[in-house]
Structures are given as C-alpha cells and as structure tokens.
C-alpha cells in the first residue's frame, strides 16, 4: 500500500477524519483534565446536591454541568471517568486481542486437533452470553478493576480467535508460506513474520471497533454493580446510579450518557474509516 494512495484514501474517508479528530480530542481532554479542573470529583459535599448546570456563568470555577446526587461536580467526574473508562477499554482490547490472536494463529496454523479444541472452546464461550458469564465470574472473583478487566477479556477474546483463525486458514496454503516452510523456517517465524504480517488489516479494523464495545460492556456491568467500584467514577456507573433521577434531575444521567456516546461514536467512526482505507477489496 503506497503512501500516496493511503493519504488519498484518508483524505476522502469522512468517517476517518471525524473519528480521528474526535478520538484525539477526547484522549487529550481525558489525560490533561487534572490541570484545569477545579473540583475533586470523588468527595461528596451534601450541601450542593443536584445543583443544576451553571454553564460558564462562573467561568471554569462553576459547576459547568451541575452536580450529582452527592454534590460532586459532574464535569470533573466525566473527565476522570473518561480516563478510567478509556484506559480500561484499551487494556481489555489489547489483552483480548493478544490472547485471541495467539490462539487464533495457533488454531489456524496447526489445524487438526489443536484447531478443533480451540474452536470448540470458542463455541463454549459463545454459547454463554457474555454478560451472564461476566456476572458469574464477578460473583466469584469479587469486584475490583483487575477482575473487571479479566472478565471483559475472558468474554471478548473469542472474536479475535475466530477472526484470526479464519484469516490464517486462507493464507496458510498460499505459496509464499509453503516456500518459507521449504526453506526450513521455524513455525514461529512463519506464524508471526509471514502470516501475521499479512492479516493485520482485519485485526486493526476489529480492534478499533472493539474499544467502543468494551466501554459499553463496562457500562452494562456497572449497571449490575459489577463495574468500576466507587468512589472512582466511570461513565457506566454514573449512568447506572443516576438513572433513577432522570425525570427530576436529568443532567445527572444525560451528561455522562452523551460523553459515552460521543466517545464510542468517535471510535466507531475511526473504525469504519480504517476499514474503508485499509480494505483490500476497495477498488
């Protein structure tokens, strides 16, 4: 894929541009928020409960998006939550991608019994809906960030394994693979240097789409009190806990909901844009 063609496509893919800007903006905002934020998002101040959003009337010092049921500033919590939700999502995606890819590669490359075992395990994990699997595991391990990550990885590695396995199956009998085997290259070399390099595109596309799904899964887990534990804020728990006040104090749940939506939307846009750019079939 020569550079000129790549940039040509990037310029033309609206999704990629919008998504890229969105993701860049969100990451910058999330990781630089401590500098300009004027409240500590975790300690409660019961006197200021449910203060409606003051916008910029008091400049940056005021509660721009109002306060929640414990008087904590919502904007601060959204920014703090952004950092937590994003880092967890990225870690989970990386881990599940790593496990899934390795297993997928092995299954696809060696085939036969190994492939059967790995694929059957995938079927087993697929037959148990991921949320229920997560609840059962969380009940066992208890709720902490490490367990949250373990649960999300356990229920998501299957997608990568299946994708990688199918891709490897396609490439395995291609001439250049057989040729390198003829030259006596080691299995690992072939698997990672030869095969893996050629199937990074579908992996990248799946990766970009999975980040959004991870954030959504965390929000569902928080709804069941299994996500990120207080006092650390996460968008999911903010929505879950604020949902009963939606009629009387809507900003408590609407603000994090929109933040979450915009972030996941940007990642999805980025993912789609990447798919259009890297998609080999694109004439």
């Amino acid at each position, binding site marked *: 894929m020569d550079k000129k063609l790549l940039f040509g496509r990037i310029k033309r893919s609206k999704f990629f541009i919008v998504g890229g800007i969105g993701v860049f903006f969100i990451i910058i905002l999330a990781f630089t928020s401590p500098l300009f934020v004027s409240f500590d998002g975790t300690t409660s101040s*019961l006197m200021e409960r449910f203060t409606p959003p003051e916008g910029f009337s008091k400049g940056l010092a005021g509660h721009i998006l109002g306060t929640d049921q*414990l008087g904590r500033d919502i904007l601060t919590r959204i920014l703090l939550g952004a950092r937590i939700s994003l880092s967890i999502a990225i870690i989970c995606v990386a881990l599940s991608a790593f496990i899934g890819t390795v297993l997928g590669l092995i299954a696809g490359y060696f085939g036969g019994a190994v492939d059967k075992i790995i694929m059957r395990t995938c079927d087993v994990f697929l037959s148990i809906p991921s949320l229920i699997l997560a609840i059962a595991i969380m009940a066992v391990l208890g709720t902490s960030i490490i367990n949250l990550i373990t649960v999300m990885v356990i229920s998501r590695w299957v997608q990568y394994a299946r994708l990688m396995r199918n891709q490897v199956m396609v490439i395995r009998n291609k001439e250049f693979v057989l040729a390198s085997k003829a030259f006596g290259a080691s299995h690992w070399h072939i698997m990672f240097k030869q095969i893996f390099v050629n199937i990074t595109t579908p992996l990248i596309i799946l990766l970009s789409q999975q980040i959004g799904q991870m954030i959504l899964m965390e929000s569902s887990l928080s709804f069941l009190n299994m996500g990120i*534990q207080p006092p650390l804020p996460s968008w999911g728990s903010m929505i879950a806990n604020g949902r009963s006040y939606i009629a009387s104090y809507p900003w408590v749940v609407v603000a994090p909901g929109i933040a979450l939506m915009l972030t996941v939307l940007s990642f999805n846009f980025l993912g789609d844009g990447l798919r259009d750019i890297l998609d080999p079939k694109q004439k």
Partner: protein
Amino acid sequence: MKKTFTFIALLMFCMALFAGGSNEQSSDIPASVSLSDKSEVTVAVTQNLVSLDVGTTPSGASLAVFDMIYDYLVDSDHNGNLMPQLATSWEVSEDNLTWTFHLREGVKFHNGEDFTSDDVVFTFERMQENPSKYPLYSANNFSLIVSVDAIDDYTVTFTTSEPFGALLTSLSGMAIIPADTVRELGDAFFTEGYCYGTGPWKFEEWIDGQYISFTRNDEYWAGQTSNVDRLVMRFITESSSIVAGLISGTIDATGRVPSDMLSQFDGHPEIILDTVDTSQILIIGLQCGDYSPFHDENVRKAFSYAIDRQLLCDAIMGGGKASNSIMSEGTLGYDANVKMPYDPELAKQLLSESDYNGEPITLYVNTAVVQGEEIMLAVCDMVNSVGFNCNIQMVEQAYINEVRVSGDYDAYVVTASFTGGDPYGYLNQRVLSDSHHHNYADPEINDYITLSNRETDQTQRNEYLKSAVGLMSEHCAPQIALFCYEYNTAIRDGVEGIEYSPEGLYYFDDVYIDK
C-alpha cells in the same frame, strides 16, 4: 424480497413458538386502571415473591401475601401489640412452659373446610418434621417449641423447652393452613394455586416475576367491608419504573419512593404523598477482633462521633430519624435519653490518641440497602475528614453472610428490622450468639439480653433491654446505627386502608376505595 424475508421471519417466529408453548395467557392484565370504572387496585411491591409455601423464608412480599390469604392464632397490628385472631384467648402455665390457646369456632377455609385445632397442630408439625425445607421454622425460633397438642376441637397447647418470652410474636408469623386439604394435595396445594386460607382475600393467580392477584372473600368470619373486587400486587424492582407507572396510571400505590424522585409527582394531585416512620435501621457491624482497627474503643467512638447522622437524613434521605442506639422508637429497649453526639473535633482527638494511623478500612455495603452507595460514600467522606482511611465495596447479601460468619471484615453495612417491635431475634443472633464472629463479648450486655429472653412480663423485658442497648451505644460495639428509614408512600387519591409496619413492610388486607 418476499421469499427471503419470510425466511428471516420464519426463524424468529419458530423460536418464539418453541419458547412460547408453556405460557399463553400472558396478555390479560389491564394496561391501565382508573378507579372509577372497576373497583380494582394495583400495588407495586419492590421485592419478588419466590414461593407461596407458608413455611418459606419470611420476606416483605411473602408477609404481605400471607396476611391477605391466611389468618394467624395471634394477629399483630405490626406495631408491637398482639390481638386475638383465630385464638380467642390464651393463658400460660406458672412454669412459663405451656401455653393454652382457645380457638375461634365457626371459621371456614376458602374451600369450605372447617377450622379446628387439627389445622393448628398440622401446620406446626408439617414444618417440625422437615425444618430445613421451611426456613420460617428457624426464623421464628420454633425449635424452642417441643410439641403442639390438640386438647379438643377448639383448644390447643404449645409446650416450650424453656420460657419463651416472644412465643406470641413468633406465632403471629405462622399462617394456619387447612390440614385435610394439604394432607391430600401435599406441596401442590401451594404450587398449583389452591392456597385456601381463612383470610379476608382469596388467592386468584400468581405469575412469577410479574404479579399476584386476589379476589375479595365475602364470607370472611370477621366481616369484609372492603369495596375492592380485585387486588393485584406487581413485583417491580426498578424504582423509576414504579414512579412512571404511578404517573401513567398502571399502578395505584407503592411504599418506597426515593425522596429525590418525589418532585416527579409535582403537577399530579391525584397521587397523595405521605411519609411512614419505620424501625428499619441502617446498621454498621464493626469487627472488634484485635486484627481490626475497631478493637480499640476510642477508634469505634471516633468513627461513630464523626458521622453527622442528621445531615444524612436531611440531605440524602429527605427524612428519617437519626438514631442514638441500635433500637428505633416503638421497639422494646428504645431509650430516648441515650446520647450519640456528632462531634468531629472529639473524634479527631480520640483518633489521634488511639494507635490507628491510616490503615485502609473497607466497609462492605449490602447492595440491598436503599441508596446504600450514596449514604456510605457520604459517611466515608465524613470519617475520612477526621483522619480515617475508609472506602466502600458494594457486595451481595450472600457475600455479607459469608463474611459475617467468617469474621474477616472491618465493617459491614446492612439494614435491620425487628419483627413486631421485639428485638429478641436481633439481639440474640447478632449480639449474643454472634460474639465469636465480631469478637465483642461484654458480660454485662450479654447478661441483660439473657435476662430479657427469660422475662415474660413485657415492661420488665423493656428495662433489661434498655440497659443492654444503653451499654452498646456507650461502647459503640458490636454495631452502631446511623438512622431509621422514613419511607415515602405514593397512593392514588381514593385508595385507603393500606397499613405500614415499623419494619417498613406494608399490608393491604384492609384496602378499600373511598369514592
């Protein structure tokens, strides 16, 4: 387009058919009910009913349901006073071991079977034979009852292994079932929807997870004055849905509206809001073993004095009474002049004197506690401001049971309530017999509790309990209390007769519509 689409529809349809086989009549509940046209009331219950068997684990839902269908030997007005119901009068022998009950005559079950002493004996013995199958047996301490004997058709005696001061209260939880019918049908009597009682309402239908409905029993022996034909109890856990249901008309009454949602009823005059003081109390159990910071009394006192209980009530709960001890008003052992001060300075000073220097303390908060996360986060901020290093972890009831029995906790947070205003059960289980778990054994307190167990005269029991509770507040051990809940009720104008017990449970057997 047509052909392919039918394939997709076919796939969906056959799946629903496959699953829909066993339960067709799912679409007959009235979507929304207005009081004027049909005298029918729908109430929302926040707890899901799991079993219709009278021996099942007592829960908010089961107590309300049994109160409708069945009667008890002794009825409680849910405020600590006991009155005759199926038993017209009773007396106890000098050695306080044998209670004799004289039964009401001419009472019939819903299927026409006569009520006799045989029903009372059978109701008890059924649970006695297989106590594990009927959790009510251990919940109401029936193990203290040695035997139940029918002297004649309308007299029955209960013999206890030791003087049992709270026998009447525990009998007020034992619903009497028709012996002959149940002998014949066995468990099917409950699972197949017979459930004949002698109560003011007849059981109509129960769909797990959805609703249970009753029809009025016009032949009720004590007279049935209600003009409601049918009462539907719907199981809804989601409070925002209950509020939406009230506003949209599908629900007529509910007992627990979080105070922050009350403002949604502005502009809805047809919904009457009210508050009910309950004895349901929010309790923090402290681990007083030497491996936990709370073994030092100063640390416990610092922790308790650093909490501004009144602010919690006013700001978060919008109501409720800050509590000075683990007893709430209206329960035996409550002593108004026990003091539990809010004094952060004293707390800071006490803490600095103690050998606590910032080890992290985890409070396990039961997810079932109403607004538990918010309350305890506020409490954490309060105690942390005086020098503690606390955080919370939301856990399920199962986790709390496990942790309490194993003793491996710093503190756990639960709500507790005293059935019939009598703390007998709580004090014995959580304070007396639990001491090897929370590792706090003050001989003085334990003596007062055992004395109160033996005493059958209520006023004397009250004195003993007061001194026990006073000591517990003074030493802030083994539990401290935060406040008693005040529940907001929301009832459609015209629906009357819903009773509320101090434990925060509600009973609908006297419901009627005031047109």
